[in-house]
């Protein structure tokens, strides 16, 4: 019952806010919208206590969904340590962001609708996390997609924002097709959809299962790619920044986009038996990480930088999952949730202070004006950049180490690319910090006049998140998960490199800081010179490698042409409408000819009737 309540609490919030919120006013909406996620958090904590005391996963069957040929499909919740970590992050960070939203969205007309959607998202996310069967997870998976769509297009009066919502939804559909196919294949292989049973089945695989494990793994990873914005389905996440900033923090940084990583970790049994699929996961992950990081270097919209940073960090998580270090991937999910939520909410606070300005070229010198935002943002920046001893350092270093030394696919190339990503991450994050908070102000006088620190509801959330970003690395997630998800063995030849690589990781963190300080100190003239020198490269990066344009040319336009010319023009207009119109026109023509007989002349009718009669008689005489 407890697990069900965890999921139902936000659903109740959705119903209350959605049905009554508009009538009962903002206080009611705020209380309901924040109290129920907090209740879910408390229930999750209680569930964790119970889990630890009994030592075995909690399984709770809610309802038998369908019985088909003796096979039962249940709605059941499953709570083990991995679920516990994810659920704590989702409800904990989720609750904080709900509280932050009461300040950020306070002036919005659709306040109740916003909280209803946010609660709905939390409900579906918890279904996704808690679900025992892939089928239940899929419901949550689609549900968070829906909530994401609704919240990206929250200000749907703006055409661009509505389009961004649609883009996210449609790109996710492609991934969902992969998820479904993978699910079907797993069912035929193992005869069950429950994740724990699937993992158990892969512990003693049949030859057929081994042969098809990689296919299933890759198909499910396509689903993960859609949700977690990996190449080639990464294009929706940067556009998703059209939504309100707390939404970007909750859905598009801390929780929903990590669902793909969670899925891979959840099905670790499958991926352990499918080295090829794991290699794909790691390869796509590292490619995404590096490319997104290079794009982030030149972005000028504060939220876009963070969006590409999120894509890049998700890539790193997949690298960890791909080399078998699932616990490390989840560790990074946790620390990333802390510092990226803090960064997004900090960015929200900056945007709030600047009356909606998002372009870093029009910021600068904000450190003294909004000190709380600055300090929290700086801590989170240092955390993501991997400055020890902050949270990001531990998780990222673990990823780098396993990408190098894991016996389940670690390689020097993987490590080198991941390290390059780490360096770029540190560089672009400190660049963002510099452009936003240091140097001379580039704001217009009007904007500068209105600069103000955000209300307590916002800064009060930034502080705990910054604290977690600072000390989150000491939460021993890999050890906590270690019993169930042992870390992969280390290649013996590479074991001695452990300490040198840590030294290098520290150097990378500070190196990025030094580079950013060097280029952007003062008025950023050095950066401008570099930009001029490598103009073509800068354009390529600013245009995000022309991926959107590429899809536009190769997918969108041909599809549009096909739909317009072939399906609409030929199929619908000519074939369907044409055949019906043709039949009607034929009837009209024939009727016109026949109508000429109807002269209205009675005598002609009589004559014809007589001729007919005579004909009938003659025929009768001959044949009877």
């Amino acid at each position: 019952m407890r697990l069900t309540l965890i999921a139902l609490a936000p659903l109740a919030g959705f119903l209350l806010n959605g049905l009554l919120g508009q009538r009962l006013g903002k206080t009611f909406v705020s209380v309901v919208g924040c109290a129920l996620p907090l209740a879910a958090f408390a229930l999750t904590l209680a569930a964790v206590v119970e889990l630890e005391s009994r030592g075995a996963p909690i399984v709770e069957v809610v309802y038998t969904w369908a019985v088909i040929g003796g096979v039962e499909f249940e709605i059941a919740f499953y709570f083990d340590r991995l679920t516990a970590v994810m659920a704590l992050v989702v409800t904990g960070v989720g609750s904080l962001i709900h509280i932050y939203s009461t300040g950020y969205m306070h002036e919005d007309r659709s306040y109740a609708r916003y909280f209803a959607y946010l609660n709905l998202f939390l409900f579906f996310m918890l279904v996704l996390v808690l679900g025992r069967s892939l089928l239940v997870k899929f419901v949550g998976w689609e549900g968070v997609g829906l909530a994401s769509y609704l919240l990206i297009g929250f200000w749907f009066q703006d055409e661009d924002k509505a389009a961004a919502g649609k883009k996210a939804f449609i790109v996710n559909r492609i991934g969902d097709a992969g998820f479904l196919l993978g699910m079907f294949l797993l069912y035929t292989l193992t005869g069950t959809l429950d994740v724990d049973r699937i993992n158990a089945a892969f512990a003693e695989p049949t030859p057929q299962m081994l042969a098809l494990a990689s296919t299933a793994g890759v198909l499910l990873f396509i689903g993960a790619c859609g949700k977690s914005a990996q190449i080639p389905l990464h294009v929706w996440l940067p556009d998703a920044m059209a939504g309100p900033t707390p939404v970007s923090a909750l859905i598009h940084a801390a929780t929903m986009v990590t669902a793909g990583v969670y899925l891979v970790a959840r099905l670790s049994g499958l991926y352990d038996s499918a080295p090829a699929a794991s290699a794909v996961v790691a390869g796509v992950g590292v490619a995404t990480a590096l490319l997104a990081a290079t794009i982030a270097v030149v972005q000028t919209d504060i939220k876009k930088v963070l969006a590409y940073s999120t894509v890049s960090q998700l890539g790193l998580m997949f690298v960890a999952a791909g080399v078998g270090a699932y616990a490390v991937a989840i560790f990074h999910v946790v620390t990333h949730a802390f510092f990226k939520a803090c960064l997004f909410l900090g960015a929200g606070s900056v945007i709030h202070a600047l009356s909606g300005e998002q372009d870093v070229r029009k910021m600068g010198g904000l450190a003294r004006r909004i000190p709380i935002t600055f300090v929290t943002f700086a801590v989170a920046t240092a955390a993501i950049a991997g400055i020890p001893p902050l949270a990001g350092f531990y998780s990222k270093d673990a990823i780098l180490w396993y990408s190098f030394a894991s016996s389940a696919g670690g390689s020097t190339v993987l490590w080198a690319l991941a390290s390059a990503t780490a360096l770029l991450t540190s560089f672009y994050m400190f660049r963002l910090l510099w452009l936003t908070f240091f140097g001379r102000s580039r704001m217009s006088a009007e904007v500068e006049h209105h600069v103000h620190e955000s209300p307590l509801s916002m800064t009060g959330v930034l502080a705990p998140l910054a604290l977690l970003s600072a000390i989150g690395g000491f939460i021993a997630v890999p050890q906590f998960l270690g019993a169930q998800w042992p870390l992969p063995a280390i290649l013996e030849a590479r074991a001695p490199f452990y300490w040198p690589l840590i030294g290098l990781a520290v150097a990378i963190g500070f190196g990025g800081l030094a580079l950013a300080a060097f280029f952007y100190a003062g008025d950023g003239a050095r950066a401008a010179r570099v930009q001029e020198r490598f103009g073509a490269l800068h354009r390529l990066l600013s245009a995000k490698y022309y991926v959107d344009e590429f899809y536009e040319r190769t997918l969108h336009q041909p599809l549009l042409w096909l739909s317009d010319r072939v399906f609409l023009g030929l199929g619908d207009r000519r074939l369907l409408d044409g055949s019906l119109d043709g039949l009607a026109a034929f009837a009209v023509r024939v009727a016109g000819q026949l109508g000429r007989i109807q002269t209205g002349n009675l005598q002609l009718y009589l004559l014809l009737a007589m001729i007919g009669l005579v004909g009938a008689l003659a025929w009768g005489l001959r044949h009877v």
Partner: protein
Amino acid sequence: MDRLQLLLLLSFAMFTLGMVGLAIRRDLLVVLMCLELALNGVLLSLVVFAQQADIAAGAVLVFLVFVVAAAEIAIAIPIVLLMVRHKRTLDVGAFSDLRG
């Protein structure tokens, strides 16, 4: 050829005349007369066959049909009158308003 055969031939001639008249005459009143002619031709054949088969009921039936025909004409004449008032002509061609 006995008399009954002759009468049958006469009835056939009357019917044919009536039908041809119906088909080709333009005058509405003449058309009505031709209609009566055709009807009477048919009735004559009815009487002949009744005689031939020696069924008295046949002769009775003829009188009944006469009554019906008279009633029919009693309705037909006023209709013709109204039509003629409407169009001021007796030409049947003028009444082809239901042309397709």
